């Protein structure tokens, strides 16, 4: 897997095809119809970032030189930012309508990306989770969009191994919630966990304008090996988080929780059989369009689990092989879910099976995340 090789601009561009296939011939999405962006590996073995509609129609496919991970969408703008899978050396700025790569930003010296980023509400700043390689400290790289995504600074994430991050709603100074996974890695040893047995996962709230770390939460010593990885923020300011347990494989621990707007943290409970079927691993979390329902996927367990956010009540699970990506569906109570070997489907909660979105999306190996834009 990834070593310390640098991707220089020329080789990146060489690895980047023009738009693959003639998907654009189908025209843009219907106005109001949901559009999704996700990374995938095609039947030809090539990595790409794809946009498709909530009805299963492909809009564009753009080649990437390596696996992409998550994507951030610029509010009020045309940019999508695709991050390389961790430990990542690049982020690609892609036009949301055409799929054309408009810019490539390489990781700063002594830094690598962790696969996730978030824009400010006005779309002028981008924050990306990064590793300060020498010390292992987590930082957010700060990028000025108008200056061509120039890196203008960095701030501490209040932990190590920051993975996902999200903007919290609200007026006034921007605040970010960051999932510090607590796992120390080094590009030389790839994704190997260097601090096994002494992970330090932390959920942090930051004010990026002055770098203040406002809050840091840990889940207690019993859950010290529970790496907090992924986030979904609701309109009322609650951040749902999904985790991956790196401790004893026979342990059974909660994997989904939330921090509400007042800073209170709770963990969601599931019946034991169902929790065991998640295999101690949540791949991503999402909220439905109403924000009332949570979806947490487990690619290891091939299961998507659902909760009522307000009460934490468990609503059941659906089986889907290698399911990982999850995003809000078109209407309340629905989610889009993607799989590495079972295509893309719409899940309707609490009743109803998964509805496959069809052949156009079925042959790709969908990667860990999906974003509704």
């Amino acid at each position: 897997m990834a070593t310390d090789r640098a991707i220089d601009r020329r080789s990146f561009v060489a690895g980047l095809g023009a738009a693959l296939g003639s998907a654009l011939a189908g025209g843009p999405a219907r106005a109001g119809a949901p559009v999704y962006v996700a990374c995938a590996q095609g039947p030809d073995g090539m990595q790409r970032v794809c946009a498709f509609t909530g009805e299963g129609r492909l809009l564009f496919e753009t080649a990437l030189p390596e696996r992409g991970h998550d994507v951030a969408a610029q509010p009020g703008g045309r940019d999508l930012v695709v991050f390389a899978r961790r430990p990542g050396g690049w982020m690609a700025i892609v036009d949301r309508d055409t799929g054309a790569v408009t810019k490539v930003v390489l990781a700063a010296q002594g830094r690598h990306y962790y696969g996730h980023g978030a824009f400010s509400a006005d779309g002028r700043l981008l924050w990306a989770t990064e590793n300060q390689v020498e010390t292992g400290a987590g930082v957010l790289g700060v990028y000025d969009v108008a200056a061509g995504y120039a890196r203008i600074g960095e701030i501490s994430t209040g932990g190590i191994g920051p993975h996902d991050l999200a903007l919290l709603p609200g007026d006034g100074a921007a605040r970010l919630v960051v999932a510090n996974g607590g796992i120390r890695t080094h590009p030389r040893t790839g994704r190997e966990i260097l601090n096994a047995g002494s992970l330090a996962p932390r959920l942090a709230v930051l004010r990026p304008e002055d770098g203040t770390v406002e809050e840091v939460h840990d889940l207690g010593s019993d859950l010290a090996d529970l790496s907090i990885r992924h986030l979904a923020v609701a309109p009322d300011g609650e951040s749902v988080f999904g985790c991956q347990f790196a401790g004893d494989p026979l342990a059974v621990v909660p994997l989904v929780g939330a921090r509400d707007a007042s800073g209170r943290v709770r963990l969601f409970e599931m019946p034991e059989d169902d929790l065991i079927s998640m295999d101690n691993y949540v791949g991503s979390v999402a909220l439905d369009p109403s924000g009332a329902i949570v979806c947490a996927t487990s690619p290891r367990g091939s299961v998507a689990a659902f909760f009522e956010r307000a009460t934490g009540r468990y609503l059941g699970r659906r089986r889907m092989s290698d399911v990982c990506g999850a995003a809000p569906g078109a209407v309340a109570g629905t989610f889009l879910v993607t799989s590495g070997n079972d295509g893309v489907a719409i899940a309707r909660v609490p009743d109803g099976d998964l509805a496959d979105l069809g052949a156009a999306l079925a042959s790709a190996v969908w990667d860990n995340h999906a974003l509704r834009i």
Partner: protein
Amino acid sequence: MRLFAALAAPLLAAGLAAAAPLAAQPLDPRAAALRAGETVLAPAYDALAEATAAQASAWEAACAAQGPSVDRAPLDAAFHEAADAYARIEPVRTGPVAEDFRFERLAFWPERRNASGRALAQLEALDDEALLAPERFGETSVAGQGFTALERLLFDADTRAALAEGGERAPRLCRIGEAIAGALATTAGEIARAWRDETLPALASDAGEAQRAAARLATDMLSGLEAIETLKLGLPIGADLADARATRAEMWRSGRSARQIALNLEGTEALVRALVDGDETRAPDTLRALAQAERLARSAPADLGEAAADPARRGRVLLLAAAVASARSNAATELPPALDVVTGFNALDGD
């Protein structure tokens, strides 16, 4: 890229003219999936359905028999037959076994927090036996519904003796066994029927479905080999000798730990052979490594867990783990290109 290939082709062709014949035509993954389904998977599920039906009958007879104590001999024999059939098909997680959480109903291992033990205790403590009826039993914890629970009931020293002694506990324990055996037969029967009635026809008529099935079967085999290495062997082996835990081995009470692994490997090998249509040259290292691992598993000590914790015998178990790891790594390299599929990576590769 395409231009280069176009230029290179005539040069390559000329160069190869005097050399070995060109590689065989690539396999069609859709035909491979159908062939595997017809020749290996559906028959294996038929065999499981048959063996679990026989086991259910054995429990019915044992519980209905006159006399207080339960004759365990036919139950033991039926268990071994049924568990053998299960082990051969266990690596497959795709198809009808993936629906309705049937995989978990068949077996619920590794045991976390003593889930099966607790489920059995709850069943034994039930005030009302209505939940043991076939139409209700599915409502109970899956940890108490399958082979993991049945093995525990039949071979755990405590419940085994209680069955044999014919005391107060025997009738209830027998009815629990009957319920589990009945549930296993029902689930296995559903899977076998679904393969014949739905899955095989779908594989034969829907090319997309067959293509996806080939990818999922390849993924299943890799996951299955990983599970053998990291769980079935890894859990008893532990990080080191001090960390070894004999009772973490699968089915240690019935002495089947090594046998389950050997049959998992046998089933995997049969599936690989069917997928490559008997042509060993398509996955030579995989088949060689699988055969080697099988040999080691068949000759491994029956008390595999104890051996892992025993300094004098641990080496043999480590050797088996290494052989399985080798089979997995060869399969990961050879199978996807041999079958012209890409295996899903979310589960295998992580975030």
